[in-house]
């Protein structure tokens, strides 16, 4: 009986962690407006005056294809949203500069090149559009 209790506690902790993960993953988090930085701007070639979605990827990233699809859908719909990808493996310094710890990570950048929000995981298209409109 004692063992069943111990196992139940372990599984309950795992389930709780799973639920926390589901909530945090793909959530659009607003951030204090941070300038994108000249280095990133030059690397990616963000056109002046356009909002942008920057997707950080890695070679072994499982969900990056899904994130890419969401970003294409959002840019295809609104028009005037610039989408770019940055491979963390090729540009580790840029990833470090923006404290990118996971792939996919999406930075939402407004027309004035200020980072407004970030997402760790695959974002929901509607959440992204809302963040861009803000």
């Amino acid at each position, binding site marked *: 009986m004692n063992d069943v209790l111990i196992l139940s506690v372990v599984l309950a902790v795992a*389930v709780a962690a799973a639920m926390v993960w589901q909530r945090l993953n793909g959530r659009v988090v607003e951030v204090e407006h941070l300038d994108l930085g000249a280095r990133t701007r030059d690397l990616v070639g963000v056109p002046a005056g356009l909002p942008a979605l920057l997707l950080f990827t890695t070679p072994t990233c499982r969900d990056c294809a899904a994130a890419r699809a969401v970003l294409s859908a959002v840019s295809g719909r609104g028009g005037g949203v610039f989408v770019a990808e940055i491979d963390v493996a090729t540009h580790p310094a840029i990833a470090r500069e923006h404290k990118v710890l996971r792939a996919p990570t999406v930075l939402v950048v407004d027309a004035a090149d200020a980072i407004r929000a970030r997402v760790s995981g695959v974002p929901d298209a509607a959440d992204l559009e809302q963040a861009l409109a803000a």
Partner: protein
Amino acid sequence: MEIDVRGPRFGAAVTCLVLSAAFLLRSEALLAFQVAVFAVSSVAGLRWSPYGNVFRFLKRRLNLGPPPATEPESGPRFSQTLGGLCAGVGLAFVLSGASGIGWALVLVVVALSALLALTGLCVGCELYALGQRLRRQGAA
């Protein structure tokens, strides 16, 4: 090799069941079986993964359809290595009499495989990606 992303989740569910049963029954044999399963996947690659092969069989039998997405096997394979090491050390502790520590290590694997089965979050894969990044930073 690219693998179906559903495969590791299936494997994790089976692993969780096998190790939970091993713990409840205090069965070193079941634990040793799971350690062997980890070892085969880790050393020979996921093509030879026992649970992976069961999954492939079920996919055909039950017509589960094509993969919704694929991923390189490197992350999941590294996770099999980590799971094998953790469960293997646990087995060693149990066999040498330190069953408290031994089964505690097994329960760590139970928790992490439950997490993977439930959410698709592979902690071992994230550690692998982190390791790759650190290795590149070191070389750069």
